[in-house]
Every structure is written in structure tokens, then in C-alpha cells.
């Protein structure tokens, strides 16, 4: 985890600096009367200090298994599938109110089963319809959740 830890430590160090700067802008106050950004600042300092400690530890510490590096991480994961699921989620969220819960859900499930899992079309259609129906029954009918009607007006 050495190289990965170094990269992540640098990332969190950057985040902690940004947090500290923003906290100062909010106002730290004093110990007698802590300001709005008081605990944010000190948590940011803690995060930054720990990031530096991790960085030092991974850089100067015992060399452990170096097989876990960024290259291996990229190579061992189906990034296409992960990216496709995320893209589908974002599009689902964007179209949820416009297309409506029913239509967007059916399209979402169909995409996941076809693009990610590469299932046959009859399976895709039947599972998409079944999922949509069960979600509709569970949320709209049983739990009385208001779902957007969208284009179909359902």
C-alpha cells in the first residue's frame, strides 16, 4: 500500500490546507469564545498533521509489499463497468423527475443489465419491468412515497 498511501496522503494534505484556509476566512475566534471556523481549523490541522505523518511513514518506513501501486490498481479493476455504473446513476438522477420515476427506472435497470452484465434482451426487458413494478409497489403503494410522474404521468 506504500505508493497508494503516498498519493492519498498528499491528497488529504491538500484538502486539509484548503480546510484551514477556509476556516480562517470564517473566523477562528479565540479560546474564550471559539469562532465559527474554530473546530474546522483544528480538525484540518489534525488531518494535515496525520497526512504528513503517513507520508513520512510510507516514505521512510519499512518497505512492504510494493505490488499495490497505482498501476496495479488501474489494471486490476474493471474501470469501464465502474464508470458505466456511475454514468448511469448520474443520468438516472438527472432524468428522474423529467422522465418520471417509472420510465427512468426501467431505462436505468435495462442499461445496467445490458451494458454492464450483457444479458439477453428478453431477460433485460423482463427484469427491468419486474424491478420497476416492484419498486412502484413498494415505494408508491406501500410506503406512500411521492414519486415524480414525469412524461408518462404515472
Amino acid at each position, binding site marked *: 500500500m506504500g505508493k497508494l498511501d503516498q498519493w*492519498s496522503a498528499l491528497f*488529504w494534505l491538500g484538502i486539509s490546507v484548503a480546510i484551514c484556509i477556509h476556516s480562517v476566512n470564517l473566523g477562528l475566534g479565540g*479560546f474564550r*469564545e471559539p469562532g465559527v471556523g474554530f473546530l474546522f481549523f483544528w480538525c484540518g490541522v489534525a488531518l494535515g498533521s496525520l497526512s504528513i505523518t503517513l507520508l513520512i511513514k510510507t516514505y521512510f518506513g519499512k518497505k512492504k509489499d510494493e505490488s499495490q501501486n497505482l498501476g496495479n490498481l488501474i489494471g486490476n479493476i474493471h474501470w469501464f463497468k465502474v464508470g458505466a455504473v456511475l454514468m448511469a446513476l448520474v443520468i438516472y438522477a*438527472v432524468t428522474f423527475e423529467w422522465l418520471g420515476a417509472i420510465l427512468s*427506472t426501467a431505462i436505468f435497470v435495462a442499461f445496467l*443489465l445490458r451494458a454492464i452484465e450483457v444479458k439477453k434482451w428478453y431477460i433485460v426487458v423482463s427484469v427491468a419491468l419486474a424491478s420497476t413494478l416492484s419498486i412502484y409497489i413498494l415505494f408508491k403503494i406501500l410506503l406512500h*412515497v*411521492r*414519486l415524480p410522474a414525469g412524461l408518462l404521468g404515472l
Partner: protein
Amino acid sequence: MDTLSNLYYGFQVALQPINLLYCFIGSLMGTFIGVLPGLGPVATIALLLPATFALSPVSAMIMLSGICYGAMYGGSTTSIMLNIPGEAASVITCLDGYVMARKGRAGPALGISAFGSFIAGTFSLIGLVLLAPPLARFGLRFGPPEYFSMIIMGLTVVTYLARTSMIKALMMAALGVIVGMIGMDPNAAKPRFTFGFMEFYDGVGLAPMIMGLFGIAEVLENVGLMVKREVFSGKISGLYPNKEDWKKSAFPITRGTLLGFFMGILPGIGNIIPTFLSYAIEKKISKHPERFGTGVIEGVAAPEACNNAAVGGTFIPLLSLGIPANAMTAILLGALMIYGVQPGPLLIRNSPDLFWGVIASMYIGNMMLLILNLPLIPMWVQVLKIPYSYLFSFILLFVCIGTYSLNNSVADIFIAIAFGIIGYFFKLFGYEAAPFVLGFVLGPLLETALKRSLILSDGSFMIFLNRPISAFFLIVIGVIAILPILIRKRLGAGLEREE
């Protein structure tokens, strides 16, 4: 006598038909989720949280509690049948449980697991009834400095027991505190770290955050790796342990129960570490330690009793002090706040129906699980055959629509997606989500306690040392900080090597 009359009142609440129904639903859902690898009780509670907002706080907590201990029952089924733990606390059951199943003794393994869990659950509830009220009375002596020190102690213990790096766990706790404080400052009414988004004025929602962090992140991890599973197709017969099995299991169940319960009380311990310890202890004291791992019933009985007892133990600090012991109870704490119930030492006094009703329902739920689980094992085995390729789309639907239902806002879905991405990268880079969740839930409480303490002491930090209870917590923090250097081995890190 007070305790008995309160418990009687609790049973009156729990035995109301509507609460019985939700207890049943929670226990069944918990078992179902415990059976399914890849979706633990924490993620389940996260997914079902929006559905509970329509219920009364008592019914909601009864159902959510049912999920907690139901998952312990269910997790053992996959450990024994599939050699894959349904949830983390059932990891150790794989070692002997699966071997027993391979040898045609799946029935007794499943049976002793269910009975042992029931016995342990019963004992832990007795302990909960006896210990929680006096602890709550003790908690009334806590002021802001004591709360501040106790929260810091809780966060420190969690990070000490982290299964990966302690430094990374501390980083996650600090980050969780920061994210938990996002929103309007309660005193100055000034937005903090909202970046102009009105959706963050009330803070980051607990439900979208945990649904993303546990639900979506889990799916992304599984989709990215895609490991094919094999289902054990042997026939299950003879679900009941014989006399010899009981003779061998009696003391392990007792030891596991005591260990799980008392360790579960301690913040940060949860139920995973006690189960590993329980197995290690049984192996150490056994006359034939070499047999562990070859299918001995003690190797199933002790850890299964332990993990169920620990669930009861974790409820003690939650219900009596309002301090969660692990990620699961942290979410329950958040849920209590969402329901408008103020957790803390006054919970017993202000909401006795909730306190005693939940305790009584846990006993009823354990009984339901014992009666239902054994005959339902063939059904759970069928559930295991649901391909993950269908399951993950359902999980994502649940997350999206569940988060939308909170405020009828698409923004909540985006928050869940964002935390799903964050949670996924946490997993990839070896950061644990539990300290983050704990920090998130405790962050606002920590800030309030700190500010009040400093105002009380006119800016002096000595207030945390001058008050004995607070000083005690700080000493514990100091000991935890020094221990890794002294013994060169952490409890949690040891677990990684065991695996």
C-alpha cells in the same frame, strides 16, 4: 422491582401488534441481508432508513434494531454454506462452519449457530436491562467537558481498533467530524463549507451519505472486481445438534457470550473483534487446538454466540449515554435525532416507551429468529443463488429512490452518488468508513461540547483535566496512544494477519 415493572411496560409496548409486525419485518430483513454477501447490516439500515420516517420512533427503532441482530443470524448461514461471510462478524465462522458443511454436518452447524445466538442474545438483553439504567444515571453527571473527552475517547478507541492503519483511521475520524459540521453554525447562523449550496444549509444528510458510502460504494467495488461465486449444493439434514454437540458447545457459548457482551459495551469495539478473540480463546484453551479449522463445533458455537451478545452490548452506550459504539449504532443515533428523540442519559426518562420497548422487542425478535430461521434455512440457501448481476441494480434503485423519498429532492441522490464515489476510493486506498461515520455523527456534538466547555472555563483547557471523569477519559486516550508503541501490535491489525 423498578426494573421489572419497566421491563413489563416494555413488553406491553413491544407486544402491540404494529410493533410485533415491525420487529418481525426488521428481523427477517436483517436475516435476509445477513445471508446476502456484499450488503451488511450497516448498509441495510442505511437503505431502509427513509422507509422508517413514516413510522413512530418506537416502531422505527424496533425495526432497525431487528435488522442489527437479524443480520448476525443470517451472516452465519453463508459462512457455513458458502465459505463467504454474509457480514464481517461472521468471518471466523467460515473456518470450521464450512468444513462441517462439507462433511455433511451443515445442519448441526446451522443449528448450534442459531441456538447459541439465541442464548447469547437473551443473556445480553438481561445485561442491557441491568446495566443501562445505572449507566444512564451515571451519565447525568456528565457535563460538556465529560462529553467532549468521552467522544474523543470513543473516536480514539475506534481508530486504535481499526483493521488497517491507525493513522488512516484517525484521518477518517477527523474528516468525518469536519463533514459532520458542514451547514449553518448553530450560534452564529452563518453557513460553513456549504459552497453556496442551499441543500447543505441543514448539513449533509445522514441517510444519503451512508447510503452512498456503504450502498453505492459496495456495488462499485463488487462490479469492479466481479468474482464468481460457487454455491454449495449439498443436502441439509438434521438441523438439531445432538447431545455430544451440546456438551462440546455449552462452555464455548458461555464464554463467547460473556466476552461479546462486555467487549461490545466499549466504544469502538463493535462485534467483529470479539468474535475473532472468542475463536482464538477457544483454540488456546482447547485440549485439541489442532482440530480447530477441521470442522469442530466449538469453532462455530463460540464466535456465533459472541457476535450476537456483542450486538446487545453495543446498545448500552447508545441507549444510556447517547454515544455510539460502532458505525451501526452511530447510524441508529443519527436516526434517533432525525425522529426528534434526544439521545443521552435522559432518554430513559423522556422516552421510556422507546427505551424499554426496544429492549423487550430485542428479546421477542431473538425468539422469532430462532423459531423462523431453522425452518427457513432451505429458503435462505435459495436466496444465495440470486446472481449479483441482478441484485446490484436493485440495491442501486433502493439507494436512489430511498434518498429521493427523504425530501423529494434529486439533490439527495447526487449527494449519495458523490459519497458513493468517495466511499469507493476509501476502499481502494484502504481507508475505513466506520471512523468517518462515527466522526460525522459525533462531530456536531463534539463542537457543542467543546465550545460550552471553553466558555465555562473562560478559555482554559485545564477544565478537561480538573474534572475527574473527563480526566479519566483523557488518561484512557493517552494509554491507547502509547499502547501500539509499547506492544508493537494492535488488536485490529492482528485481525488482518489472522485473515
